[in-house]
């Protein structure tokens, strides 16, 4: 019983002592941090007791953060109170990492040391507002300092202020947190700026849905990219050509019919004049966004396009047909001859048949080499511009040393080609109107067997060839020039007329404005571009077939470079010419020695290199056409 009493008293005592200990522990725990404790909001607000921190902060988006989650450097409230601990500049990037990363490129940060709270005022009271018009807020904020009336009086700015959610605010062009500045002097900007801002314009103005919502065309970007300005810009050389803002201005962008608009016809002289000088007023009729598919607005472009496309398709379809049928016939014939062990006579020539005779004089051979060199240069400097979106174009232009340099080299090669063709035209005149004879009998010479001008025999030969392709007749007997050689020759004259004429107009548009109006530039560019495509594809496919791929000549015919071939080959390939030369006793004068090894090697190398380069370029061109 006593023990029972003692038992009940001991637990009560221990409970009390336990409670006492606990109480002590609580006091210590509560007071211990005071010795060197971190701050919690109540502590900060003991001194920082303005309504901003006590009331507004609690209603702000950051309310759930303690003061020291942003003001990280305060660890000891006593030290801070005594002025020994000051908070560091707040790094919002601790939470807002992506924005902080962008912000490191921001001009306002790098040069003016703006921090987040300098724009987001007051940062302690910031609230989330889902209904806020962000674009309006952006314009309001930027114009607090950049109070330029230009920005908001018209154009995009005005549209945003009126509530258009699509129109560009300051941030859409200049970037929001990564605002960049390109050390611009006020009215002219360097290449990087032009490139940067042109991409921004394109981003919205090529967006079909957005353009449709605002009753605007979504094709303007594509039309710009089809012009010289757009292509050079696409190639990566924005410095010498107009970007969007050069013509449309930066901030007060107005439609053409507004008299204040920079693209209003009354203001074009000043507008275009910022880059172009020394032009006649008709220069200004240039169309900066042409659509060759629009028959009403651009009829000359439309019909030119139809004509050039028709010419291209027609020529290539006919000649590819010619090539395929010819190849078929020759390959089959060679197959049967091979099967029966028969060799072509030119390969088994003996005696007289081995004698080399000249077909092309040294002058003709040199001119052909120069023609090849200038043609390849023109293709390699011109096609990257035509297909400026292609990756290979940018590589090639870089190799030339930039768009401007490529343009200069293009014009240089063009001069060479013009010189060659002019010389050939001169030689043609000498042939038709020889010294001492004059114009007597010139028609006979023009339609004669030595002329490169087509005549009735060529028509007969053409019909004969097609019959021969289908095993319906013997191969025609040719005189000096076959119809396909004549086509090659005459086509260059047509080509020079089209491509040379348009090229000269495009050479320096300001000079051309003395004779043609500015809108002709788009037509000239179309002719130039389409004719170049026709010429390149024709040479690299049809001409190369005639000279390299026809099975009787594969891998190449060195004749154009060495100038001579066997008498046997003359008899076989140009029987009528052979008979004529024998009859006129001119054969002896054409006898030559066998070409040396150096000449043969150089000829083969140069010829095969040209072939490979041509095939490579054809592949690139076809790829670009298909990829579009």
């Amino acid at each position, binding site marked *: 019983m006593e023990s029972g009493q003692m038992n009940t008293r001991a637990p009560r005592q221990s409970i009390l002592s336990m409670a006492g200990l606990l109480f002590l522990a609580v006091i210590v725990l509560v007071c211990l941090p005071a010795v060197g404790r971190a701050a919690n909001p109540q502590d900060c607000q003991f001194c920082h007791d303005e309504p901003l921190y006590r009331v507004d902060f609690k209603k702000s988006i950051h309310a759930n953060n303690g003061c020291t989650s942003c003001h990280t450097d305060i660890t000891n409230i006593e030290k801070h109170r005594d002025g020994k601990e000051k908070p*560091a*500049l707040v*790094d919002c990037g601790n939470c807002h990492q992506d924005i902080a990363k962008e912000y*490191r*490129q921001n001009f306002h*940060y*790098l*040069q*003016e*040391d*703006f921090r987040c709270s*300098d724009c987001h005022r007051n940062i302690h009271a910031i609230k989330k507002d889902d209904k806020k018009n962000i674009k309006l807020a952006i314009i309001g904020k930027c114009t*607090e*300092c*950049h*109070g*330029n009336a230009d920005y908001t009086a018209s154009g995009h700015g005005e549209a945003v202020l009126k509530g258009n959610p699509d129109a560009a605010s300051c941030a859409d062009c200049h970037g929001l947190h990564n605002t960049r500045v390109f050390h611009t*002097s*006020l*009215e002219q900007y360097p290449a990087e700026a032009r490139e940067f801002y042109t991409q921004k314009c394109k981003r919205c103005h090529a967006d079909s849905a957005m353009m449709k919502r605002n009753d605007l065309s979504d094709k303007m970007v594509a039309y710009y990219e089809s012009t010289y300005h757009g292509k050079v810009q696409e190639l990566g050389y924005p410095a010498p050509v107009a970007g969007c803002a050069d013509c449309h201005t930066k901030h007060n962008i107005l439609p053409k019919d507004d008299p204040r608009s920079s693209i209003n016809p009354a203001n074009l002289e000043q507008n275009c004049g910022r880059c172009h000088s020394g032009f006649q007023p008709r220069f200004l009729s240039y169309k900066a966004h042409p659509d060759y598919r629009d028959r009403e607005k651009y009829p000359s472009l439309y019909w030119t396009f139809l004509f050039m496309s028709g010419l291209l398709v027609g020529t290539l379809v006919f000649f590819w047909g010619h090539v395929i049928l010819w190849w078929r016939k020759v390959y089959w014939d060679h197959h049967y001859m091979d099967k029966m062990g028969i060799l072509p006579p030119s390969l088994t020539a003996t005696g007289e048949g081995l004698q080399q005779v000249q077909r092309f004089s040294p002058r003709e051979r040199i001119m052909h080499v120069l023609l090849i060199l200038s043609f390849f240069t023109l293709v390699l400097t011109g096609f990257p511009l035509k297909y400026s979106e292609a990756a290979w174009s940018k590589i090639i232009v870089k190799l030339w040393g930039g768009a401007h340099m490529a343009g200069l080299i293009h014009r240089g090669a063009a001069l060479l080609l013009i010189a060659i063709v002019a010389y050939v035209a001169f030689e043609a005149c000498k042939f038709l109107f020889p010294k001492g004879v004059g114009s007597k009998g010139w028609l006979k010479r023009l339609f004669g067997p030595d002329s490169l001008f087509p005549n009735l025999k060529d028509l007969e030969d053409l019909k004969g060839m097609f019959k021969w392709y289908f095993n319906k007749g013997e191969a025609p007997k040719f005189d000096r020039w076959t119809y396909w050689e004549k086509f090659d020759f005459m086509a260059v004259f047509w080509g020079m007329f089209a491509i040379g004429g348009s090229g000269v107009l495009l050479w320096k548009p300001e000079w051309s404005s003395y004779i043609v109006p500015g809108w002709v530039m788009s037509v000239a560019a179309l002719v130039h571009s389409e004719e170049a495509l026709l010429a390149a594809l024709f040479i690299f496919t049809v001409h190369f077939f005639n000279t390299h791929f026809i099975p009787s000549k594969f891998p190449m015919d060195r004749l154009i470079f060495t100038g001579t071939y066997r008498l046997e080959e003359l008899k076989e390939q140009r029987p009528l010419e052979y008979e004529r030369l024998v009859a006129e006793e001119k054969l002896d004068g054409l006898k030559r020695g066998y070409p040396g090894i150096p000449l043969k090697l150089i000829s083969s190398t140069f010829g095969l290199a040209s072939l490979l380069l041509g095939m490579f370029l054809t592949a690139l061109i076809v790829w670009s056409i298909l990829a579009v």
Partner: protein
Amino acid sequence: MPAALILILALAACAKPQEAPPPWKIIDASTLKAMMASGKVMSVFNTMSEIECLDHRIPGTKCLSCEEIENSAAGLPADRDQALVLYCESEGCYRSCRAADAAIHYGYKDVSILAGGMPAWKKAGYSLESVERIPRMPVVSVKAPELREMLAKSKDILLVDIRSEKSFQEGHIEGAVNIPLYQITRRYDEIPLDRTVVLIDDRGFRTFLAGSYLDRKGLKVMRLFAGMRGWQEMLAKKS
């Protein structure tokens, strides 16, 4: 053989003469950070004005404006052999190069400047410290043509040119007064409170902070966009 020799000599003669390198060293941001962390005995100076330096500077560095350095060596360490690093806020080494030139002139042997200045430090991702932060106020900018119109119409405008004395003497807008930024803390009360002040500097980069500072002193301030460069471009275009 002689032909080859002549060719080589000719090529050598045509070679471009090398520009003499500057007498100070050029170091990048990561090098400076490493140097400062290594505990090496050195002095690193921010050569901007006092208010700019106290507003933001590389942690652990001191403020000494380049004008003060050019005026006398008093603020620089007594030991001419000590390593000096000078930096400023432009990417093109305006002020720190002038200060470095002066330091070399005084006989300091180990002088370096920070390539790319404070912007390079920031781009490298390093932080700055702020001793006395100036709250940014919305300081309105005017472009040069606008300013010219305003000057023609109103006598109320006071042009305050905050560039150094030398730059001011080389050419300034007519009627401007010169209060170099490094003296602003001692001289701001020279500016009357009832005039509208337009701040002018070299390129327009420094007048924003100056304007925020003066706004807090109760002045009505605006700034010339692009500074004297903008003004000169406007004049060049007219002619």
